């Protein structure tokens, strides 16, 4: 994958000074962003992110005919209410973890699978810079797709008259989604660097472990990202659905500073671990 982008040394061998970690990360970021954006995985991302936009268009269409798209207990759910549900159900509980799993686990795994890792590791850069550069490219790539989609959904669903009162919550939503992508990306970058079958493990973590532990009483939920991320969301958790009812029953919301602190600890911790693993691990490319 990366082989085409990395220049091949020509002529007599010369001792090339090693690039700084930051400069190397930036270089890898520049190369990886374009690759990630125009890969097949982006089609999957477009489909996933296009879902809520399509849903918002349908809701808008229904409301244009004077009907209400959603009613709860005979009460019409307003545009911002529907937007909140889309943020909660689709973006926070599905899109952000799924993008984190698919992109995060592939940061190193793709290079191993395509047998292009050798080309990267033979460059005069620190190995960790490769992971950080690719991680930043993942973050830019997903943020550039997810956040504009959220913005489009917001303007489709929320009437302009409600803009002054709801805009602050939108900004908060965007920040939480950005943080969610960053933390899940960090966690799954570690999974991708450490495990041999990272995608399966990532999916089990995001849609098995996290969902189950959130529904159970006890302290296990503290070992999830979703527990802290959901504590930051400004929308009340919808209470329909068995899982939500269970999660609502055992829901103890950590204070915002605690949630933020743990999210940043996860982010920093897992990225550091992933970098250490990439620096030390001997990758064996299967022939």
């Amino acid at each position, binding site marked *: 994958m990366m082989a085409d982008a990395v220049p091949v040394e020509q002529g007599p061998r010369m001792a090339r000074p090693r690039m700084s970690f930051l400069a190397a990360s930036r270089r890898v970021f520049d190369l990886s962003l374009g690759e990630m954006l*125009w890969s097949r995985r982006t089609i999957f991302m477009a489909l996933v992110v296009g879902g809520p936009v399509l849903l918002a268009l349908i809701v808008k269409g229904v409301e244009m005919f004077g009907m209400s798209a959603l009613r709860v207990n*005979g009460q019409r759910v307003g545009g911002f209410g529907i937007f909140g549900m889309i943020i909660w159900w689709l973006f926070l509980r599905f899109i952000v973890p799924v993008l984190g799993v698919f992109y995060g686990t592939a940061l190193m795994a793709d290079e191993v699978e395509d047998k292009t890792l050798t080309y990267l590791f033979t460059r005069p850069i620190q190995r960790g810079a490769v992971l950080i550069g690719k991680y930043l490219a993942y973050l830019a790539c997903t943020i550039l797709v997810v956040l504009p989609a959220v913005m*489009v959904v917001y303007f489709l669903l929320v009437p302009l008259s*409600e803009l002054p009162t709801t*805009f602050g919550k939108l900004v908060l939503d965007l920040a939480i989604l950005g943080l969610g992508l960053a933390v899940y990306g960090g966690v799954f970058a570690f999974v991708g660097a450490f495990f041999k079958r990272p995608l399966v493990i990532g999916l089990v973590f995001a849609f098995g472990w996290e969902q189950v532990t959130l529904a159970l009483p006890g302290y296990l939920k503290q070992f999830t990202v979703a527990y802290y991320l959901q504590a930051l969301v400004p929308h009340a958790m919808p209470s329909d659905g068995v899982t939500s009812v269970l999660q609502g029953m055992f829901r103890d919301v950590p204070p915002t500073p605690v949630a933020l602190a743990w999210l940043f600890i996860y982010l920093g911790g897992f990225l550091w671990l992933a970098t250490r693993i990439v620096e030390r691990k001997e990758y064996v490319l299967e022939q």
Partner: protein
Amino acid sequence: MSNKKTRYFVAISGTILAIGLGTGLLASYMGLPVSVFSSAAGPDELQYVPADAAVVAYANVRDVMNSEFRQRFKNLEPTQENKNQFEEKTGLNFEQDIDSVVAVALTKDGMANNPAGAFLILAKGRYEASRLESLALEHGAQVSDYQGKRLITHQEMQAGTDPNHDDMAFGFLDADLVAFGSLNTVKAAIDARASNRNIVSNNDMMKLVNEIDNSNAWAVGRFDAIASKAGLPAEIQSQMPAITWFSAAGHINGGLSGTFKAQTKDEATAKNLRDMMQGFLAMAKMQSANKPAFQQLADSLQLSGDGNNVALSFSIPTELLDVLEAMAKGRHLQPQQQH
């Protein structure tokens, strides 16, 4: 960045975000009238409602008149004699000629002293303007023009000494729209449209109007403004819950369904109000236990809301309407039998 395609993508994504955030910031700090990018919610007549209106109510008369609900009770209405006299004089048949009515309450300081001066009615329909004008002139009214609109004013001779008195007026605002109220309120309606400073630019009020869905009769307004200006005794005012905004919406067709929403000053008041209403609902359900029709009504009462909001929805079932109709017919027949 590696290539042109990527740069374009980043630029487009960034632009979408920047436009969205910019618009939101602008709206948050400077306010944004509803009519900037979209057509306002509610009927077009709202453009004639002054921006400081405390209550706005709307009824789709055509829908209500044609509803099964109204047809059901039509034969209980008084005789057609009085109606026909009115129609002969004015050429106006309420059932057929009026499409919709908007009623407005304005919180003027003199609301308690001069109630007529605080109300404005906007009626949309089909009128014979010349016939109405000549009828008014016959009865001593005066015709004048205000900003290109025809006004018919009725001056009361005895009102000269009353400082709060305001002459009643009738204005032809559009070919199919008339305004009725005091001369000052009718003029205020014309000014509201001409200056574009009308209720449509009142974001708080329009937010409530926007939430109303599929209703052929509704009312929204500031509860505290009416309570403070209506000249209610202090004892009553102190007992009233601290409601700031309210909205009531109903749909009349075969049955009758509706929702009442209130926004209180704080969460504690809303909780108290919900608790109080919950108590009433429980009592209503207990009382209606032996009456199936009323029990359905009691069961349809749904109390909801969170934070500062309280909402109560209801639906009058057909069975209950049958009972009410039978009761009304019984009462209607009794006086005739006595004669």
